[in-house]
């Protein structure tokens, strides 16, 4: 870790007024974005693997390269409550956690979207206790999927940095005013280095307007009461407003990607919510979130060499869920296999969360692909080319018999 901290020290000395390229990890990329976004209040609490982002942030502050209130809270619950309140008085905030740390904050995670508080958080996805495991699993971030958090999974450090900037722009847009979590697979992204283009401060200032709460600002000049007791009289109307905000988020995200291309030159406009890989003539595709894309793409290339028409779809935004985009994309294929790095015990077909969500989204289609769910890579276990090849073979068999079989399969488990 000492070596990493040293790298952060060097990076912090790099001038921020010109765009430049650096070899940095996913965590460090997000730390750069946070500093470029001139965040006002940050709270930290140690838990692997997300906490590397806070180590980089701390180093920048210590070196005098970044000015913000940096609070090391006494728990994750306080960590998230502190930034929630800082955001209410108009401060741009950053926070994050992993695994059981994220779960410890759960009450705060619940009220933040309910209060329409814009916040950007980094989740370094990690298996929940018990038993202890440092590796990636998505159940931590997935736990908030019904509450009004925007959730995006990224798969490389450049995307992590870019998405953090986009997240501020979307979360702080008055049409949205919801928190956004950037989900990064523990170790595979948080601790892996990539060559990343770090934008200039001037570019970021052009892209990111200041955070304004206007009539929602908690300040003596605007004496409002926030979150009064409403009971059954009003709670449904307020929930509906959150529903509308989440629906509007899709348009705001799309607009942000278009503007992002203009300012930074990197173009995500063809892969805003989902990203397709070698799907043009594909008959069978796999779908997954986060860094599972790496072994999936390698496997797709290998199988294509054997003449198999295979592709991969990466689901980026889980909330707001790209229902239309997925319907349009997946209806073309004979079979779709969803790789879940999570579990949902006792769920429909005993499947993973993403599998069941995607399958539900396709239900109204007249022509639906056969669908199987694969639970794989839990606790950070590597998902190998062999594992993915096995998934493809199962899907091929389903196509042959005209029935998804099995509906859910655990891949790579020792019997």
């Amino acid at each position, binding site marked *: 870790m000492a070596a990493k901290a040293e790298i952060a020290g060097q990076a912090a000395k790099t*001038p*921020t*007024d010109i765009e430049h390229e650096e070899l940095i990890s996913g965590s460090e990329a997000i730390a750069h974005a946070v500093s470029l976004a*001139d965040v*006002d*209040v940050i709270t930290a609490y140690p838990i692997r693997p997300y906490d590397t982002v806070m180590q980089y942030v701390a180093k920048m*502050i210590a*070196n*005098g*390269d*970044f*000015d*913000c*209130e940096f*609070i090391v*809270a*006494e*728990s994750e*619950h*306080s960590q998230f*409550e*502190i*930034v*929630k*309140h*800082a*955001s*209410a*008085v*108009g*401060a741009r*905030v950053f926070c994050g956690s992993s695994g059981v740390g994220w779960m410890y904050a759960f*009450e*705060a995670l619940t*009220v933040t979207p309910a209060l329409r508080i814009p916040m950007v958080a980094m989740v370094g996805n990690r298996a929940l206790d018990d038993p202890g495991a440092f590796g990636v699993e998505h159940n931590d971030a997935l736990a908030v999927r019904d509450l009004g958090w925007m959730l995006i999974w990224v798969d490389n450090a450049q995307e992590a940095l870019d998405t953090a900037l986009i997240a501020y722009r979307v979360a702080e847009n008055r049409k949205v005013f919801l928190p956004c979590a950037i989900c990064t697979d523990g170790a595979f992204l948080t601790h892996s280095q990539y060559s990343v283009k770090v934008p200039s401060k001037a570019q970021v200032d052009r892209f990111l307007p*200041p955070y304004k709460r206007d009539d929602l600002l*908690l*300040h*003596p000049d*605007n*004496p*409002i*009461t*926030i*979150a*009064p*007791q*409403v*009971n059954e*009289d*009003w709670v449904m109307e307020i929930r509906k407003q959150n529903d509308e905000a989440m629906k509007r988020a899709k348009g705001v995200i799309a607009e942000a990607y278009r503007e992002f291309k203009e300012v930074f030159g990197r173009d995500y406009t063809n892969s805003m919510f989902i990203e397709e890989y070698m799907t043009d003539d594909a008959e069978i595709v796999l779908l997954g979130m986060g860094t599972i894309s790496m072994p999936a793409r390698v496997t797709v290339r290998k199988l294509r060499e054997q003449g198999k028409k295979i592709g991969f779809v990466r689901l980026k935004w889980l909330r707001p869920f790209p229902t239309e985009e997925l319907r349009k994309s997946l209806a073309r294929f004979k079979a779709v296999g969803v790789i879940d790095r999570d579990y949902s015990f006792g769920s429909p077909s005993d499947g993973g969360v993403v599998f069941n969500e995607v399958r539900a989204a396709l239900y109204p289609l007249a022509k639906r692909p056969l669908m199987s769910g694969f639970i794989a890579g839990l606790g950070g276990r590597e998902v190998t080319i062999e594992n993915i090849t096995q998934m493809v073979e199962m899907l091929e068999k389903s196509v042959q018999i005209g029935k998804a079989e099995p509906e859910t399969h655990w891949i790579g488990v020792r019997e």
Partner: protein
Amino acid sequence: MPEPITKDEVAEVRETLQKFVPIKGVRQVPLEEFFTSGHRTCQGCESSVIMKLMVKAAGARTIVLGSTGCMYVANTTYYSTSWVTPWMHTQLGSAGSAAMGTAAGLKALMRKGKIKKEPINVIAFCGDGGGADMGLSAISAALTHRDYNLLILLYDNESYANTDIQVSSLSPWGACTSFSPSGKAKRIMHNRWKKNVVGMLAAGHTECKYLATGNASDAIDLMNKVRKALSIGGPTFIHTLDPCTKGWDYDPMFSHELGKLAIETGIWVQYEVENHKLRMNGISKNIAEGRTPRKPVKEYLLKQGRFNHFIDEDFAYFQKKVDEQWEQWWLPGVIPFAKETEAVKK
């Protein structure tokens, strides 16, 4: 390249403090109310009087954060909030975090020139359940951050009142609550002694410049304590004892008398710790200096339905514990241990 931060951040927050203007008598009490009509607390609710005095003393340039409990649920009904100052709900265990987040947000925005630099008071309140049980860790953390100006006020009605009067760690020994009823097999269900909150926090948070106890029966004293807390700099803490008609079971007209009796019996001690110096206040000062004898605790206990089941040995035990606090504690009523040599003498 941003300028390196070399400024003394503690000095920086001193710039945004209000000045201490003492209230020297009833005639100097400001007329403006910042906690007004619209609330639905019980008749005789002393906690709501604390709210009124607290924000009256603090004034208009104040942000109040309130954790879940009676003072949230009964005071901020949608469309009829009783708060004239900006007010925001915070979670049951979050008074410390709410105060810190608000103060940190204001501080960052003022330093960066994003909002006007001016004194804005930050007060977070919590009940005994929210503060002394669930939120203790966050309050403890807040009291170590000397670079944030904030006040945490714990209004203590001695139970989880809002959820139907359940025992908390600040409920008095033996009290009947809905989680500690008196029954045939167990006369006394609640057998824990009340936590000594200010003593504990004062001893353990050496950067905290002001901590005090208060009571609505001494309103001027309380308002001055709020003003001191908001002008001394850094995090501060006040703990008030508030008779609660519903939980304590007495006629609402006796709320003030009961609060005063708690002090006269020595059960509740009025004091402040300012810049690490302890000062007893009012009746407690007279008791501490031997000018006024303590009244028997029985006088106080007998007036409340929650102690109806007490028999002689319970009164005796309660009296013994209160006597100990005055006669054997190193700092009577404040610090609950004695030096070994002195303890042996007794």
